């Protein structure tokens, strides 16, 4: 097979695998939050919210840092 197609397929697999992983993680976390809330485990619920907030902050900070350093 043409190596253009091979490298394209590899890039697409990485991209789509990343999207699927992120979607799975969001659904899983949403499920855990609902369970914790319904069970009255607010400490666990707040812990997840804080973790999500920290992850989003880290993600945005990483993007901004990459922009600032001219990497992207």
């Amino acid at each position, binding site marked *: 097979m043409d190596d253009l197609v091979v490298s394209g397929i590899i890039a697409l697999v990485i991209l789509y695998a990343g999207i699927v992983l992120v979607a799975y993680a969001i659904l899983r976390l949403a499920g855990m939050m609902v369970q914790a809330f319904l069970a009255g485990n607010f400490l666990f619920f707040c812990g997840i919210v804080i973790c999500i907030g920290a992850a989003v902050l880290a993600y945005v900070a990483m993007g901004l840092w990459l922009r600032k350093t*001219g990497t992207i």
Partner: protein
Amino acid sequence: MAHVLVSPLNWGLGHATRDMPVIRTLLSHGHEVTIAACGSALSVLRQEFPDSRYIEYPDYPVPFSSGHLFVPKFCAALPFMLHAVAQEHATLEAILVKDPYDLVISDNRLGVFSDKVPSIFISHQLHYHLPLPYWPIEILAILVNQSLHERYDRIIVPDNPPGPLSLAGKLSRPQTDVARERVFFSGLLSGTRQIACTQDLDYLVVISGPEPQRTFLEKIILDKIRDLDGTGVVLLGDPKRPKATSRSGDWTCVSYASTEEKVELMNRARCVICRSGYTTLMELAELGKKRALLIPTPGQTEQEYLSWYYEQKGWYHSQVQDRLDLADDLEITRRYRGFPEMPKTTENTKRLYDELLAGYLE
């Protein structure tokens, strides 16, 4: 005399028009040029170079979205594009078997390269800009671009080298060794040219780009030009409509203008209102226009980046389509200074030929 295959992408006319000066230079040096393209790009080049040979060479559809979902829709379209690029490459191999060529020049057609014939890629985008939330995809795109650039002997970037005169900003910055080794900054390449005429038009509005955003902008502009003082022409840029001209007060509305008519109107205009597509911006630079209002196509990340970049540089004012207040925005354009002086197409194509193309053709 060498034989060159030139193949521009047919996503708008930008690729075809910026290749015109390159084709003209090749022909003026006595080389034979075969143009392989499709759609409007092929029609425009056929008009401009009636004596050249042509090959109908289909490319792939534009995956632009109608709204603000460009990135997700583009990602979803990638497998189809990959398939189309592979087909495009197979077609090129068949073309090269039929006729001997000394050089292949691809303007942004990713499948147009060969192991057997030296291949040159023309692109102003060595790097794709995406909105911040998509930064991992932007990094992945750097790797994908590296893999694509490896297939070409050289890459012509129609921009000045990175620095104060760079027209494409980060888009034309080589970020991998593969790109750095191959890149040749030709400076701007534009199909338009300066003509001797008086600037008797206050405004020229060029409504272009993919549908349905072209129609949305047309409605917004036609609704608001009544508020403006001065004379103006609106180019609707819709080749599907019958050619018609209508007048209303000091304004003229033209459904479609030929390349020659557009060149004349751009030369006559004191202020240009247009999309921030890279080819249009090179036209502004070529004509030395100091006043323009840029309206990026919503969701087109490249145009949005260029608009932002020019605002930062103090070159041109931009406004997003939905927040356009024509009278106010045109007043703001007076505070901007336009592009700085830079080498023009004639000088650039001469240097491009002497320093790069001649090495493959003579």
